[in-house]
């Protein structure tokens, strides 16, 4: 099988790029190759979904490209910045200033109100909050009435909307979302996915989302498929059916192999 380089279907420059990225855990008999020479580009203003079965390396790819995990070989860049070789302090600053995160388990601070959670990255950076932008973000995610609530007083969907707003509020170059709908019922999940897609369409945001849900992937502009640590395929303008179809094909291939 040849290495597939997933190239952009959209326009514009790459917001993030991986070149020959490998991630190996352990050594000797317990050696596990999580990513095997992966090269991929995520373009500005594009909503990309990374799909694959459990253990395919999709989360590892995201973590490496977001500067949360170290890479074993290859390179990962955010904009023009090479992540490999950066020290913890620089990586932290990079994440703070240029990347937004949405996690599966919401990961809000229970002691802070919704609004405080949203502005947390700016507070950490000591940056002034752009009031107009913040208002429009809050409006977009539909949280206007609940800004003074604490996470415990919000439903799961509302909490994840706060998390989305937090990721958007700092106008990062790229947002990484790790299974953002994993803990939500389908209606709340659909709302979250709608926001992410709108943020791309209307606000020009770049979003990379890891998911194993074909319906979630169908909200993206492009789907990149991972299996056994390699990129095996990609699909532009996906629908739930086309995604499922592809997935089934990999499944069958895996079994016949």
């Amino acid at each position: 099988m040849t290495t597939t380089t997933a190239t952009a279907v959209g326009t514009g420059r790459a917001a993030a790029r991986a070149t020959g990225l490998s991630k190996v855990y352990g050594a000797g008999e317990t050696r596990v190759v999580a990513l095997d020479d992966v090269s991929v580009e995520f373009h500005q203003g594009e909503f990309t979904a990374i799909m694959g079965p459990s253990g395919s390396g999709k989360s590892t790819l995201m973590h490496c490209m977001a500067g949360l995990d170290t890479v074993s070989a290859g390179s990962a860049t955010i904009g023009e910045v090479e992540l490999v070789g950066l020290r913890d302090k620089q990586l932290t600053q990079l994440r703070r200033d240029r990347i937004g995160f949405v996690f599966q388990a919401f990961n809000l601070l229970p002691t802070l109100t919704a609004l405080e959670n949203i502005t947390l990255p700016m507070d950490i950076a000591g940056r002034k909050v752009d009031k107009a932008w913040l208002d429009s973000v809050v409006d977009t995610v539909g949280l206007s009435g609940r800004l003074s609530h604490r996470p415990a007083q919000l439903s799961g969907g509302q909490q994840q909307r706060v998390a989305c707003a937090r990721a958007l509020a700092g106008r990062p170059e790229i947002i990484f979302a790790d299974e953002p709908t994993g803990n939500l019922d389908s209606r709340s999940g659909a709302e979250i996915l709608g926001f992410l897609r709108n943020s791309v369409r209307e606000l020009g945001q770049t979003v990379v989302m890891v998911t194993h849900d074909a319906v979630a992937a169908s909200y993206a502009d492009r789907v990149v498929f991972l299996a056994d640590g390699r990129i095996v395929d990609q699909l532009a303008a996906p629908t739930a059916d086309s995604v499922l179809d592809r997935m089934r094909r990999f499944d069958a291939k895996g079994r016949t192999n």
Partner: protein
Amino acid sequence: MFRTALRNVLAHKGRLLMTALAVMLGTAFVAGTMVFSDTFGSALKNSYSKDFGNFSVQVADSGAGNDTRTADLTGSAAPHLSTGTVGQIAALPGVARAVGVVDGFTAVADKSGKALGQGRDSRGSNYAPATNGQDPRYPMAAGRGPQHTGEIALDRATADKGGYRVGDTVRVAINGPARSTTLTGIFTSDSPQVSSGNPLVLFDTASAQQLLLTPGQFDRIEVTGAAGTSQQALQDEVVKVLPDAGSITVKTAQQLQDQEKADLDGALSGMRTMLLAFAGISLFVGIFIIANTFTMLIAQRTRELALLRAIGASRRQVTGSVLVEALLIGVLASVAGLLAGVGIGAGLQSLMGSLAGADTPSGPLIVGPATVVAALVTGVLVTVVSAVLPALRASRIPPVAAMSSGELPSTQKGLLVRNSVGAMVAGGGLALILWGSSAGSNGKWLVAGGAVAALIGTFVLIPLLSRPLIALVGPLLGRLFGVSGKLARQNAVRNPRRTAATAAALTIGLTLVSALTVLGASVNGVLDRAVTDTMKADYAVELSHGLSVSPEITAQVARTPGVTASSALTGSYFEVAGQKRAVSGIDAAAADQVLHVKLTAGSTAALGQGRLLVNDQVAKEKALTVGSTVPAVFPDGSTGTLTVGGVFAENHLVNPLLMSNEALVRHGAAPSTDVVLVKGAGGESSALHQALVDAGGDNPLIKVDSKQDLRDQFSSQIAFALNMMYGLLAMSVLVAILGVVNTMAMSVFERKREIGMLRAIGLNRSGVKRMVRLESVVISLFGAVLGLGLGCFLAWAVNGTLRNDLTGLTTVLPFGKLALFLGLAGLVGLVAAIWPSRRAAKLDILDSIKAA
């Protein structure tokens, strides 16, 4: 279930470490106290038990001698022990030998003039040769016993220490100028006092009586029975001649030994009780930490415990497993504590040795069975009892909790009941304190009871208090430290119960520390003013160890060039207005120049007329005004009346009754001089100071103090007492620090996911560290502020009850010191957070985010 408990202990080694350390420190304190007091006690017994082997019966006269300041001089009318008495007893049937003994403080100077030996244990006595010319009590190793005035014998250790040989000139001093004497002999003695290194100087009997007592008198007569006469029979014989009455006591050697032992035990048990009280405080502080740890451990293990319940464990079994866990830790920590305690005991002993010099008795380390049992039982009991509530809470976890996923909502059970109870107890306590404080000295118990209630009430209320108090510093933290500060503050109030238990441990220590400090400062203030307000003299000349100043020195001081006025301030004790009272004496002519007596009626001129001055309190009590007369029984046994010549405001330098020395002597008193007050022509000067020291005639004990010296002495005494208390309370603060470490470590562990998220969205390592450190500091400061507040309030209340005993007592808040304590508490927070904050900063981001 036992195996589950064991596994749990092993699995949570790290987290249980702090708990174990807290228990260990407490038990070590208990064991150390007991080991030290046993060891010190046995050494002390060896050192202080007088040699009772030399005689069968001792007749003692407590009325003899000028050794004590408050000698009961009315006793002078009663019979004393004279040479005649000795002969009388010696003639009794069954008596082999009767020796009259004189005994009193005597200092021996080394060749450079400094006193050999320390304290009042440097003694002088008489050499009483038997018919063969030798005193069997003191066999001579070299030379012969003293026979004439100006001759002395020294014990061998002292002679060696001073480098003296037979024939050398040795300077000795009692309460007058030093005397040059000739060393005629060096003796050995098996008396424990001598063998523990205290100097003993022997004079011939006549000189000893003259120097140490009164010519012709003895302090005691040691009677040795003839072979076959029992101590009891001998005592009966002696009592026939000399009744056991008045100041005379007749005791057998056995009785004396028993009494000595009882006295020592009493003194030692006092010391032991005090030390154990402090150990108790540490253990009490430990309870908070242990309970906190188990609560947290159980919260973390909720799902695990629920699983046990789901697969069929009964509530009792769950409770049991937690208690067994506590038991295991209790046993391990107590054993470690016991071992550490033995070490502490040994350390304390050598510390005493190095602090007090060669004077402290030493002996083998004693680890009694009571020590072992007490240490183990307290350690285990405290641990298990502290774990009871958490264990019961564990049994209430429903089995279904095993199935629920994600974060379990922290049980925010209403604090309403707790707060109401706390408010009631604290309110009641405050009311009691206020009531007791206004009731004066009768209110001591009210204040004590109120203080306990207020403390307990406050502890119950701490969770409620934590939010508003910590919110006060919120804006400051946010402004100074940004997000880290803001998050730290919010984390600190996140679990009020836990914050409360952690802070309470510090609150206890700081309440006591600050109360003692404020009390010390207040008392210091009174004494300071006492010196400034009452003493007009420039110098006070006195002898150390509370010895009375001899008339020779008093006279010499008066003759010293540069002295414009001087007066002995004396003390006498006789019956005035139907009650034995201490009466101060001052020279009428010098009174106004050396003493500042504020008269509310009459004048000091009345002193010259032989009249009595009384302070306002006595005046009020006895309804006395200028011109009133009071009956008196004078020291010489005569009766008469005294006319009140003035009423003065309470004065700390003189007794409530004041007369002139001349009048006192006229009435037959032989007043002892406490201090000689001196007014110099040119005020204080180093020349005058030196001249006054010289007036002491080389007595190594002479002290010449300016007002500032006196003030410094008072404050250094108070500072010493305070420092000792601080030292003892340091242990409880140490335990409290462990509690903070524990809480912070647990918090970091529980908030792993949040920390991971914060790191992911861009908080750097130092930011995380700062967040944890600040939380720790905030909790510590919260505990400290509560403690300082409570402590100051308590001290104020105690001052209220002391006001009658110590006039002019006002509460002085030593802000500098209190601020220092607050600063130290902050430092405690920083130190406690070192390890937890480092752990938090090192957390792997991905692991943490994924952590369940």
